[in-house]
């Protein structure tokens, strides 16, 4: 593999590549994210943002208690988020555990949801603590079952102990399994990487290794998709684009629960990576509760009065 000509696959070249990255000042990044959070998105732009956000949702259920019934209901909601309003777009994808992929794909296809992807969390999600053959098999299973997107976790232990080449090689190996069948999203679990320097480093590492998307979190660890973390990742994809002319996607996941949060994410995208990233093929939001809040806000904008949760479905 060529790795965009940025590294040659050796430990030394990876270290050099990562060593050339500039640092991130936490206070400055926090301040920039906080300033962008003051953007006031009203009327027509709010309406546009809500629909755009809906189309970017990776509607997620990642519970030990997931059943085929639960997943099927989620798929129905994914295709038609508001059964009373056909102008509401479908979400970007559903995101499930590997054993639910086949059920999700079959159900989506059966209700006219061919355009909605199925994302499988993979590589011993959420901890990533398993052997490489297990991680490969995990991924292979998901692809065989029809996953069009693989959300893999990195080995944070390896990353934090400086074994970047191991993290890199794992991503390369999973990338190979995905081939052309599935998009690869690489989850950092930024709450465990802790520093923005690490987030920036992990972003460049994953992008060079072949990630199609970089994703903040599993949703199992807090803090997850904080605005400054997403800012740092958006800066990374922007800089990577200027180096390679390849646009890598970003997926914040975890903690984005209401419309205000979602719109803040879109503002971050718009003013950091740029409007080119404002498409579901380059920006996704991993969420479950968010969708209903987006729908309620949409109703409010259409009807002119505040909505009640009774009028949105709970699936």
């Amino acid at each position, binding site marked *: 593999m060529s790795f965009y000509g940025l590294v040659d696959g050796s430990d030394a070249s990876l270290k050099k590549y990562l060593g050339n990255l*500039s*640092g*991130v000042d936490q206070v400055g990044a926090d301040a920039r994210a906080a300033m962008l959070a003051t953007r006031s998105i*009203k009327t027509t732009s709010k309406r546009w943002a809500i629909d755009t956000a809906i189309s970017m949702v990776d509607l997620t259920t990642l519970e030990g208690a997931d059943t085929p019934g639960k997943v099927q209901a989620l798929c129905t909601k994914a295709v038609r988020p508001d059964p009373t309003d056909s102008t509401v777009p479908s979400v970007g994808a559903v995101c499930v555990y590997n054993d639910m992929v086949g059920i999700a794909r079959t159900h989506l296809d059966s209700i006219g949801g061919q355009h909605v992807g199925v994302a499988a969390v993979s590589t011993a999600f959420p901890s990533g603590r398993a052997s490489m053959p297990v991680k490969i098999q995990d991924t292979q299973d998901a692809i065989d079952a029809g996953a069009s997107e693989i959300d893999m976790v990195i080995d944070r232990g390896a990353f934090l102990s400086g074994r970047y080449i191991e993290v890199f090689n794992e991503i390369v190996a999973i990338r190979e399994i995905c081939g052309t069948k599935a998009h690869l999203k690489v989850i950092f679990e930024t709450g465990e990487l802790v520093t923005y320097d690490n987030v920036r480093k992990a972003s460049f590492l994953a992008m060079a290794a072949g990630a199609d998307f970089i994703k903040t979190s599993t949703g199992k660890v807090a803090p997850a998709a904080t605005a400054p973390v997403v800012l740092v990742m958006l800066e990374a994809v922007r800089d990577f684009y200027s180096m390679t002319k390849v646009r890598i996607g970003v997926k914040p996941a975890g903690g984005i629960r209401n419309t205000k949060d979602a719109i803040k994410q879109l503002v971050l995208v718009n003013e950091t990576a740029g409007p080119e990233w404002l*498409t579901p093929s380059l920006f996704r939001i991993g969420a479950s509760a968010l969708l209903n809040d987006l729908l309620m806000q949409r109703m409010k904008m259409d009807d002119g009065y505040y909505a009640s949760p009774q009028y949105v479905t709970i699936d």
Partner: protein
Amino acid sequence: MSFEYAPAPESRAVVSIKAKYGHFIGGKFVAGSKHFPTINPATEEVLSHIALAGKAEVDAAVKSARKAYVTTWSKMSGKERGKYLFRIARIMQERAREFAVLETLDNGKPIRESRDVDVPLAAAHFFYHGGWADKLEYAGLGTSPKAHGVAGQIIPWNFPLLMLAWKVAPALAAGNTVVLKPAETTSLTALLFAEVCQQAELPAGVVNIVTGDGSTGALIVNHPGIDKIAFTGSTEVGKIIARAVAPTHKSVTLELGGKAANIVFEDAAIDEAIEGIVNGIFFNQGHVCCAGSRLLLQENIAEEVLEKLKSRMAKIRVGDPMDKNTDLGAINSKEQLHKITELSTVGDSEGGERWSAPCELPSKGFWFAPTIFTGVTQSHRIAREEIFGPVLSVLTFRTPQEAIDKANNTPFGLSAGIWSEKGSKVLWASQQLRAGVIWANTFNKFDPTSPFGGYKESGWGREGGRHGLSAYLKGATHE
């Protein structure tokens, strides 16, 4: 797809502007004799008419301040004085939105800045100094420091309310009474502040506000009934004041101009440095004495930084100051716009390469697009003179010492910026730079606890913190 932000204007309903204002003397609004219009620089709409104080009004204000000093304020305990400052702080917080809207209408600065920076900081200054009033004996000037008496204070148009707070709060905390003159183009928030003084039941005459132009300022500076002069404004006027008070016993503090270097080293956190550069020169339309108006880039990263800076500048939202999403508002006055335009033309003719962010400027009002000049050297006028607008001169350097030498090669010495992730280099540079405020890996941060003021021709004394307070007290041995 594109994400256009719909207009998000802040409501103007919260303020009511009178057609005409007088002066605030002896706790009352008194009618002025002559008036001049004050306009909204974003629309050129006449907002109101401001009184021009002449000798009689200034005399009355000084007399009222003296009387309040002698009969009330100097006799009151610090504990009680402090409570008035706390009251003022609280009322300013309560009426914060009103102040912010009025400031933006009168000054042209974005509502986001007046709302998030100017007004909260102004209230914080009163709160901070309220706590000093009964602790003056711990301010480092001996056990019984004394107030000067009547302070004459002249403030600029770039941060009208905030500069008022910087001046009035320490003066009152230290036990002085004041005669304050806001800038000619931005008097409205000072007059609203007079209402706050009334609501706080501040004793009559402790704060007097006279409006007017430079002639009113000169009357204050030369008034024999004033003991202490505090001025923020241009170095040119600062020198005139220094000469005027030289034969007198007036104590003086001056916050004057600057031409700050903002130094970006090769090991900087680039994205935050870009934000710091933008904040350094485009905050408040560059109408900031401590603006980072000379960008010094290490040569080996200059190209990368400039590319990023330009793309970041293209995202600056220029326009209606009342829109909550506006980043860069209107230039405060026609005269200032003229000065910026003229100096920029000088930049062109001296061979600087001008680049302005692509943005649509409103047809009415005074506007200037965010602009940088590259290829600038120390010999260019735009690298030496204060432009006081959204215009950045970009220079390069090869070694840290060269950066410092260039940064210090100016008669000014107000502020400087340093961007590096290497701690020892940051401390080294902050030691070498000849400026009163050093922002390392940040820029344009202000706080009531933090002394602010310049070296060399950037002024005399400090404002903020214990050092700023001492300017309003006698106790030191020197005269």
